[in-house]
C-alpha cells in the first residue's frame, strides 16, 4: 500500500503509466461522447413542456457536474500537498485548474442559452447562478496565484491553502436550489432517489457525464505530463525521452 503511494508520488512513474492509459481514456470518451450526443440530440424523446430546447441538458449537466467535482478533486489534492508534500498532487492542481475554469464557463454559457427559451432570460442573479459565477472566480484566483509564485514548493502549498478555503463554495452551489427558492430547478440526478426523468432521457445523459469524466481524465493526464516534463526538464529521464524518441515524445507533449 505505502509502496504504491510512494510510487504514485514519483513523476517519472506517473509519466509512464499515464502514457499507457491515455489512448484508452481518449478512445472510450470519444466513443461515449459521440454515442451520447447522437442518442441525446437525435433519438431521445422531446420534453412535453420544453420541446427540443431541453436537449442542451446533455451538455449543461455534464459540464456543471464536472466543474464542481474538479474543484473537489483539487481540494483533495490540496490536502495531499499540505499533509504529505506530494509533488504530483500539486501537478494535478496546476494542470486541472484551467480545465475547471473552462468547464465552469461552459456550464454558465450553456445555462444562459438554455435559460433564454425556458425561463425567458439569459441571466438572473439567483443563488445557483451566482454561486457558480463565484466558482469561476475561484478558479481564476487559483490560476493567478499559481502563476504568481515562482518557487515551486511554496507555490504548491499556497495554492493548496487557497483551494481549501474556496471549498466552502461547493456545498453552497449544491444546496442553493434547496435553501433558497431559486429559479433554477433542483438536481435531476440524486443519490438516494431515482432520476426524475424516464430512462430514454437519463441514460444518454449519464453516458454524456461518463464521457466527459473520461475526457477530463485524459486531458488531466495530458496536462500533467506536460507539467512534469517542464518541471523535470533537467533530469536525465526527461532528457532521454526528448533525445532518443524525439518525434514520438514531442508529438505526445504538444496539446
Amino acid at each position: 500500500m505505502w509502496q504504491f503511494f510512494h510510487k504514485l508520488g514519483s513523476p517519472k512513474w506517473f509519466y509512464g503509466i499515464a502514457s499507457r492509459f491515455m489512448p484508452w481514456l481518449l478512445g472510450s470518451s470519444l466513443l461515449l461522447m459521440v454515442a451520447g450526443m447522437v442518442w441525446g440530440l437525435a433519438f431521445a424523446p422531446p420534453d412535453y413542456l420544453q420541446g427540443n430546447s431541453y436537449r442542451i441538458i446533455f451538455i449543461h449537466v455534464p459540464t456543471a457536474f464536472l466543474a464542481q467535482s474538479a474543484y473537489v478533486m483539487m481540494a483533495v489534492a490540496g490536502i495531499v500537498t499540505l499533509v504529505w508534500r506530494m509533488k504530483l498532487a500539486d501537478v494535478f492542481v496546476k494542470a486541472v485548474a484551467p480545465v475547471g475554469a473552462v468547464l465552469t464557463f461552459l456550464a454558465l454559457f450553456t445555462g444562459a442559452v438554455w435559460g433564454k427559451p425556458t425561463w425567458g432570460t439569459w441571466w438572473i442573479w439567483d443563488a445557483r447562478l451566482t454561486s457558480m459565477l463565484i466558482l469561476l472566480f475561484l478558479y481564476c484566483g487559483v490560476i493567478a496565484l499559481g502563476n504568481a509564485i515562482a518557487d515551486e514548493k511554496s507555490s504548491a502549498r499556497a495554492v493548496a491553502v487557497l483551494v481549501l478555503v474556496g471549498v466552502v463554495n461547493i456545498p453552497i452551489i449544491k444546496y442553493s436550489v434547496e435553501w433558497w427558492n431559486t429559479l433554477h430547478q433542483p438536481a435531476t440526478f440524486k443519490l438516494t432517489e431515482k432520476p426524475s426523468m424516464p430512462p430514454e432521457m437519463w441514460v444518454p445523459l449519464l453516458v454524456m457525464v461518463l464521457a466527459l469524466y473520461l475526457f477530463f481524465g485524459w486531458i488531466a493526464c495530458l496536462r500533467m505530463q506536460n507539467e512534469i516534463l517542464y518541471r523535470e526538464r533537467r533530469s536525465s529521464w526527461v532528457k532521454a525521452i526528448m533525445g532518443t524518441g524525439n518525434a514520438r515524445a514531442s508529438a505526445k507533449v504538444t496539446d
Partner: protein
Amino acid sequence: MLKLPRLTPRQESQPVLPALLGVLRRDLLANFRRRQELFNPLIFFVMVVALFPLGVSPEVEFLRQSGAGILWVAALLSTLLSLDHLFRHDFDEGVLEQMLLQPQPLYLMVLVKVFSHWLVTGLPLVLMTPVLGVMLHLDGNSIGYLCLTLLVGTPVLSFIGAIGAALTLGLRSAGILLSLLIIPLYIPVLIFGTGTVTAVAAGLPVGSYIALLGALLVVAITCAPFATAAALRISVSNS
C-alpha cells in the same frame, strides 16, 4: 534563513495572554506611527462614495435606494486596499519571522493582529458611515442598521482578507492578486450586508440577515486565522 534555537517544550509554558496583549500594544503603536498609511484607505472610501452621486445620478430616489450598496462596496474596496500593510511591514522588518518562532500559538497571534488591524481600519469606516449616509440621503433608521451591518461585517472582511494578504506576502504584484483571490469570498458578506438594509427599508424583519452576518463573523474568527497562519508559514519560508 537564520536558524534560531527553538525553545524546548518545557520552556513553552509561558503565559499566553501577556504575550498577546504585547502584540496588540505593539501593533497599535506601530500603526499610530504610520498614520498616513491608515488615512489613505479612509480617504479612498470617501472618494469612491462621492463618485456615485457625481457619476451615476444625484437624484434623491436613486441614492436612497442604492446608498447602502454603494457604502458597502466602497467599504469592501477600501478594506482590500488596507490589507496590503497588514503583514507587510512585519514581513519586511523580520518581525514576522520572530513571531513564527514564538512559543505562543500562531493562531492566536494572527487573531490579535487582525483584530488590531480592524480597530485601525474597519472601525473608522463604520464611524464615518453616518456622515456619508446622510450625504446619500439615507434615513436615520437605515443608517443605524447600515452601521450595525458594517460593524459586524468589516471584521469578517478583515479576517478573510488576512488569508489573501498572507498568501500574497512578498509577491511583486500583490495588490491586484490579493483582490482577485479575496473578492469572490467577500460576495456573501456583501449580499447579507446590503440585504439587511434593503429589508429595513422595506419594513421587513431583519433578524435573520443579522444572524447570518453574525454566523459569518463567528466562522471567520474561528477558522480564518488557521488558514492565515498556514499561509504565513508558507510565505515566510519562501523568502
